[in-house]
């Protein structure tokens, strides 16, 4: 099995979302770009899965394929007992209401010509739920829950709000249908740092209040660390590592995870982590490298890496990596985090 394998999928548990061997590509012929090539992961109810990776690695595409905004070319997306990839368009419309998305650009995700109250109550209007007053009342409650004053904001249009406020409105709209799964596609990367924290806290609160499961896509490890229960690291359409954020920070098993961590700016001068980031560019997904896709930029790459693609394997309990030479060897005992100095907290 190339491309990660499925060793990291949990079985026998209550699983809300199980994605297996997902493949998504764009274009056709020689310019065909395979944005996602064989990704598998699962998310338990109430869990937050963080997905990180640099731009162009396919993380947003993965999120959109899960919501069936782009139909995947291959693979399965099993959500809450229903296989989404084989649903007809009618059934899919209905199933989608349980999977909602929040996007990166908060202003572009709201129709500039409509009023806030109409935008937030639109999902209810689509499904013909309640009268207009009931819908608006529910939308007003939702707006309040995300910290927007409905009396003041309801009649205005999105262009009159800041990015952070627009993101709050998007969240209200996404949650009004009471979805089980929320896919957040870089929801804070377009916002000011201070507003980022507000939005992240809001998402966290709403998630706990409403028992929402989240897939949180970001390129910022620091953001993901704070919100996720598990983190999936992606590179060029493939999964590199899947583990808890603590384990990822303490002892990354995949060389790419290590490089990502090293790229976080150090708030403490002099506390170098030894390895300094990555060199070179992301290879073209039109013609990805043979074997392990990361080998062209990997400091530990050997001849085997060009020949054979490494499958996902458990290197430590709950820590999976797709690498022939993982930095954490299977069976190796993780260093106790107790007395060791905490890794410096990233600045949000």
């Amino acid at each position: 099995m190339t491309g990660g394998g499925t060793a990291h999928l949990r079985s026998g548990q209550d699983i809300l979302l199980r994605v297996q061997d997902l493949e998504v590509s764009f274009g056709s012929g020689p310019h065909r770009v395979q944005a996602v090539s064989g990704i598998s992961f699962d998310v338990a109810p109430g869990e937050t899965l963080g997905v990180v990776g640099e731009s162009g690695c396919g993380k947003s595409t993965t999120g959109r394929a899960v919501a069936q905004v782009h139909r995947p070319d291959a693979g399965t997306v099993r959500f809450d007992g229903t296989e989404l990839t084989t649903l007809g368009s009618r059934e899919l419309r209905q199933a989608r209401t349980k999977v909602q998305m929040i996007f990166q650009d908060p202003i572009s995700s709201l129709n500039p010509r409509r009023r806030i109250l109409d935008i937030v109550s639109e999902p209810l209007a689509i499904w013909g739920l309640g009268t207009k007053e009931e819908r608006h009342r529910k939308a007003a409650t939702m707006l309040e829950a995300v910290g927007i004053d409905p009396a003041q904001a309801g009649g205005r249009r999105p262009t009159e709000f800041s990015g952070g406020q627009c993101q709050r409105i998007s969240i209200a709209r996404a949650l009004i249908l009471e979805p089980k799964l929320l896919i957040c596609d870089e929801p804070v990367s377009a916002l000011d740092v201070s507003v980022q924290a507000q939005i992240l806290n809001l998402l966290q609160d709403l998630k706990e209040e409403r028992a929402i499961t989240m897939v949180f896509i970001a390129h910022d490890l620091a953001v993901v660390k704070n919100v996720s229960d598990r983190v999936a690291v992606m590179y060029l359409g493939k999964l590199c590592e899947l583990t808890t954020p603590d384990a990822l920070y303490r002892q990354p098993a995949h060389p790419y995870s290590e490089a990502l961590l090293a790229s976080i700016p150090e708030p403490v001068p002099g506390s170098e982590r030894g390895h300094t980031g990555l060199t070179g560019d992301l290879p073209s997904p039109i013609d990805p490298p043979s074997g392990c896709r990361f080998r062209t930029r990997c400091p530990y790459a050997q001849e085997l890496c060009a020949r054979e693609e490494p499958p996902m394997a458990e290197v430590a309990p709950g820590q999976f990596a797709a690498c022939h030479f993982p930095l954490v060897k299977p069976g190796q005992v993780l260093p106790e985090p107790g007395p060791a100095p905490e890794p410096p907290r990233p600045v949000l």
Partner: protein
Amino acid sequence: MPDGHHDPPGDPRILGAPAAFSPAVDAEVGQVARHLHTSEPATPTGSTSKRGGLGVVFWIAAGWVGLTVLLALLAPFLPLQSPTFQDYSVVNLGPSTHHLLGTDDLGRDMLSRIIWGSRDSLVISIVSVVVGMLIGGSAAMVAGYWGRKVDAVLNAASFVVLAFPPLLFILAVEAFWKPPLKSIELWKLVVMFTVVAAPQLFRVMRASTLAVSNREFVVAARSMGASTWRILTREILPNVLPAALSFALIGIALAVIIEGALAFLGLSVALPTPTLGNLINEAAQIYNLKANPTAALWPSLYIFFLVVGLNLMGDRLRSTFDVREGNL
């Protein structure tokens, strides 16, 4: 849903009491809200969306165009002489109280002829642009939203029509298509103008549909389960229409001019029925122009102000909407 996990869309629970918030959370949220409104007040960023923002020039232009259209509509009820009534005792007169704009070489009242003439000119221009917008616009939205093959086919079709210079195309059709009845000559012009206008409007609206279709709010609507029809009419159309409207206004102005050009070649509605173009054509014959230059001047001025008014309106609308797009 086979598994029964999904709530059917009509589930009353969805609209029931929302998940109860604890009072503490509510209070906290309220504080956040208050804080937000004090720290980043949601003040309107510009008054361009308000009517007053269109400016005086726009409203003068709109007033003039509106008056023109109103006069044309009310022509049968206005106290005007028949536009074809000839009185040889008052040939080639200047303006007077009886004939406000004077008379032409056959003693017909110029004001009456201009107002009646603008009727046919405006019918040709407005109807063809409106119908062209309905046809071209719906094709554009289909092409822009679905993309791929539908887009390729419709796009190619629009290029084929656009490849003909409009005036040449109309001349060619004029040469080969003689309508059986004189009364439908007007509608023949309308059809030809529609064929010319539709692909132009198609191109403008397709471009803006393409731009809007990839925006996140369209993706969001789709993921909320909105039907394609709902996405097209509620999400995309309101964003495409303003630009298309301003383009259509300029298109109407252009159609008025093309009608004038056709009349000058004697290919518009047959004489003695007046159109704005026919009037200029008639008055500009060399012996008429010498005897009575004002007979050519008045309809020319009428066209001039009508076209300038339409262009100013279209321009102003476009810049207003451009600014709003720029604010995004």
